[in-house]
């Protein structure tokens, strides 16, 4: 890890999270925790009748990595088809974060993506996240 682990972009997303808040009503919703850190994320999605993510919001609390990664994710997925997001490789989000992560911090970074994929699975029947393997500590409901 170097000085720029908490680089400006990550700190900015942490301090000013994008698409932060609730959607009520919403078409899809899921929440998850990372008991190790105590990270919590809830994601809400609206499709407005189609298969494209028209609106997405998240709420949560936890470490900077978990919240910043979810905030970045929100910007990445809005306007995309549910199937496309369900198949989105985790590396795409990790590239966006752009910092090396130890396995423990990887769980923080991927919490929001996992929760979003569960929400999409529930409403659109898309496949469940493949990144679940090795992330047993995550508790998604």
């Amino acid at each position, binding site marked *: 890890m*170097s*000085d720029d682990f908490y680089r400006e972009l990550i700190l900015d997303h942490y301090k000013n999270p994008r698409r932060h808040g609730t959607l009520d009503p919403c078409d899809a919703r899921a929440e998850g925790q990372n008991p190790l850190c*105590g990270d919590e994320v809830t994601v809400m999605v609206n499709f407005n009748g189609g298969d494209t993510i028209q609106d997405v919001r998240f709420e949560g609390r936890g470490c900077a990595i978990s919240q910043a990664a979810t905030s970045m994710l929100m910007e990445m997925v809005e306007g995309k088809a549910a199937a496309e997001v369900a198949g989105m490789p985790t590396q795409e989000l990790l590239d966006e974060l752009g910092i090396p992560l130890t396995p423990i911090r990887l769980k923080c970074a991927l919490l929001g993506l996992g929760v979003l994929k569960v929400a999409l699975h529930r409403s659109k029947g898309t496949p469940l996240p493949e990144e679940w393997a090795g992330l047993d500590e995550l508790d998604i409901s």
Partner: protein
Amino acid sequence: MTRRYHEGMTEVAPARVLDARKLRADFPVFLDDSHGKPLAYLDSANSSQKPDQVLGAMREFYEHSYANVHRAVYELGALATEGYEGAREKVRALINASSTRECIFVRNGTEGLNLVAYAWGLDNLGPGDVAVTTELEHHSNFVPWQFIANRTGAEFAVIPIDDNGELVLESLTEIERRGRVKLVTSALISNTLGTINPVSDLAAWAHERDAIMVVDACQAVPNRPIDVQELGCDFLAFTGHKMLAPTGIGVLWGRQEILRRMSPFELGGSMIRNVTAEKTTWADLPAKFEAGTPPIGEAFGLGQAIDYLNAAGLDAIDHHERGLTEYAMGRLAELPYVRVFGPPADRRGGIISFEVEDVHPHDVAQVLDSEGIAVRAGHHCTQPIMDHYGVTATTRASFYLYTLQEEIDRLVEGLARVRRTFA
């Protein structure tokens, strides 16, 4: 065959004043840098680093004295048994147990406490009985009792803590009204807050009610002289890996008269006297509670670790940690954005949990890691304490015989950097 456990290795000077810088030379881990900086290992309450004396002696043992114990008739088997039982005698002397029969080798502190919870608890707890633990406990001395109380229909009672992280003993009056108190258990030192608990008083209170007293001493045996007779408890569990020994070895000490009446915990080889299809009888203590091939090399390593601690002086280690703790509490108090949990310096061991305002403990630990400073971040297996303070996690710094005062200065500087990063 000659044994050369110490040949070529630095003898630890039996000085009563501890020279941490000198002792550090015995620990190979400090030869390595961490992120290009000298390692400041402030996580010894989690697990300690290991000195050459332990590592080298274990290697020698495996190279020249290794075989299974208690059954091999050849020379190697005798040497291995001698090493294993020799370690047991060192354990006995360390805690002033009256007999090696009372010192049972287990896997770690958790297994020692589970042994009592299952082997004593299942037969001795029932409806109308109360098992008393504390809000301070590590999950390993909380969850087993909660589970066994549920299984047996006994009441599970928890002595609460005040905002200083100290036990509210007045609660015992109310707890006692819930039924027959059969068991009281407490950590000697809290792994999260460092609180030193009044274990002798609790033991006396328990004995007045014909209850037994179980002590989790995982955070105390590594760093201060412990005498089970003085504590007045009935069981005492501790783990090796926090006291310079390898992982995979711990000790449960228990009073013979209670251990003899108890059913076994694990069943199988080594713990039997005679087996037939009709009936099996149990081996004498301590074998009755040591089923299967034990951690032989690990026990030997634990014995060497005890030698090392005795040479450094447990009273000297205690003195060293007290000085560091007082210094660290003073330095942390200089940082207005740091909140320290738990009692004042003179009533705690070398463990300090804190939070940095508006920064998650994992982020604190990550920034400190980049400065070569290793601290623990999390709930420390004490979620009831986290609930008490309304936090999900804390950052914890803990000290040991190799900790230097300048490492605490680095911690304080690192926290200032954490603050700047997240301000």
